[in-house]
């Protein structure tokens, strides 16, 4: 009985913070709501026994990415935001479209009753807890190639962000 309550509370928080992310006027607030949402999701991961992922979620997402966001927000110092309208002209249509899509997806998810997945069972029994090693094994053994490519990806991202943020003295047109 405790499980559902925990789930619903966490899920409620996630949804709430997510909604706040896209409705808050100030970008800094948005970032903070997003951090909150991400943390809630991390909680959900723990609840799902994906502790390693939860840790990464907190470390990378909250600690890395969101800090970057906040830095950029500060750098740009875009404080007119509060005085201007926050949504594009198509917001009504956008909400309609998004809800339609959600409705359609859910309709198809549950068309044939509750979700049935994976007709092929997993390779072997995987312990429910203490999965860090297993995930690590997965990362370094079967998925070592993507892992290496990911390193390239990060290298490129570093080059790119430096290059783009560095700027250039003369303007072109």
């Amino acid at each position: 009985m405790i499980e559902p309550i925990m789930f619903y509370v966490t899920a409620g928080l996630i949804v709430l913070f997510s909604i706040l992310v896209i409705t808050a006027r100030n970008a800094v607030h948005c970032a903070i709501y997003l951090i909150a949402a991400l943390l809630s999701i991390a909680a959900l991961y723990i609840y799902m026994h994906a502790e390693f992922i939860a840790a990464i979620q907190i470390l990378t997402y909250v600690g890395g990415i969101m800090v970057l966001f906040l830095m950029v927000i500060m750098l740009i110092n875009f404080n007119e935001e509060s005085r201007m309208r926050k949504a594009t002209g198509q917001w009504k249509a956008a909400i309609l479209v998004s809800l339609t899509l959600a409705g359609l997806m859910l309709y198809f998810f549950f068309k044939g009753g509750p979700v049935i997945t994976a007709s092929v069972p997993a390779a072997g029994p995987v312990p429910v807890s203490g999965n860090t090693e297993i995930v690590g094994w997965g990362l370094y053994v079967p998925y070592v190639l993507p892992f290496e490519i990911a390193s390239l990806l990060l290298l490129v991202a570093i080059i790119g962000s430096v290059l783009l943020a560095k700027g250039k003295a003369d303007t072109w047109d």
Partner: protein
Amino acid sequence: MVDIADKTALLGDLIQNSALIKPEIMLIIWASFCLLVPKDTRRWVSIFALTGLAISGFSLYWTYGYQGSAFGGMLQLDAFGAFFKILFLTNAAVCIFMSRKYMDIEEEQSGEYYCLILFATVGMMFMAAAVDLITIFISLELMAICEFILVGYLRGNRRSNEAAMKFFLLGAFSTGLLLYGMSLLYGLSGSTSLEVIAKAMEAGAAKNPLMLVAMITLIAGLGFKIAAVPFHMWCPDAYEGAPTSITAFISVGPKAAAFAVLFRIFLSGLGPVATDPTYLRLLSVLAVLTMTWANLAALTQTNIKRLLAYSTISHAGYLLLGLIAGKDNGGVTAVAIYLFLYAFMNLGAFTIIVMVRRKGLVGDTIDDLKGLVTKNPGAAIMMTVFVASLAGLPPTAGFLAKYAIFSALIEAYFKTHYTYLVILAVIGVINSVVAFYYYWLIVRAMFLIEPTDDVKLTFSPGVVTALTVTFAVTLGILLYPEPLLNFARAASNSFLR
């Protein structure tokens, strides 16, 4: 859990397998070296990068014979991948050739530029070989991020910024959709390996309603990459804003890579789904929409880069026809041939546009080509051939490409007797006529309209090299297409296995 012996064995495997991705590794090394080039020798960095491509090409030749999976099923090394890898290497090489002078004019000659091109190429090469969703995803992102940066490479140029911004936002958005689809596939099959997914599909996952959502989000995500209507909107904007050499680069390589992935996923992974007539019809609609919409939109374009963007979109439509024709009917062969030849003709056309660029003239509107025949007859003639080829006119390469596609469709019709295949073919050929009209606007401007200035255009060595290669293939392929056809067929067959 895993004992030492296993780990040693795994390490041995890793080293052995690394030999199989020698081309990629070579390119990674060279790309990294590009970053380290000192400022005063930047003039040579392009040559350096080309050397890397050449070495990679040679390595590819040495590894070509190997067929089979590597890295525990992450990669499938086969002729299909090799075919595309050659395509990517050529693409990168031609782009580097045409970039040399162009980047001088833009005053952006730097190691990073070439490095990013090479990294993007690495990404594409992994995409072509990847048979696991995670590998596919990560190499696709490697390519995409390089693209984003390259498109925004002219940092001082607002158009370039804006193009990068749009491309990036929509790219990330579509990645989200793609990932969503992939997550569902994983949920349905319990694995990210396409082989396992295929087994799961046969075992009944294909009938799961989740599959539809997965399918459509996948179509949306990959449709974005190949710029299929209605996921194409970024394409003209990004093409227009990007540096022209990069426009050329991203109009060929990433499209081809995305098609390789599309084929791997749809034909290997979702085999039973992909032959479901309903999905085929869905894809047919996508193809028809893509061709028609792009052709109509291209009609009134005045900017050549935009025009060629729409042209690229419409070509994506034709390529989808190959997918619809299916793997048993030469569809894969046709698409391989098409992409290969398209690379040459499209790059050739872009080379000419790059050539027109000079200080004070962007050279990307049709008007800038006015009277090109008096300014540089050779360039005008070559451009005519490229454009004719894009339009699919014999005896150029484009004809062979179109021929291959339509032939696959008709063959599929004779096997399945689905009428919509013929209708698709008819729509396709009619579209090629419409397309001809706007392509020919370029020829018209070059030959039939008097120039507004009398600046003579000259060739630079890099451009000449690029043009020589592309022109020779575009005009000459029909004389002896056999090697290409055989290679493409081999690619198709290896892929089917």
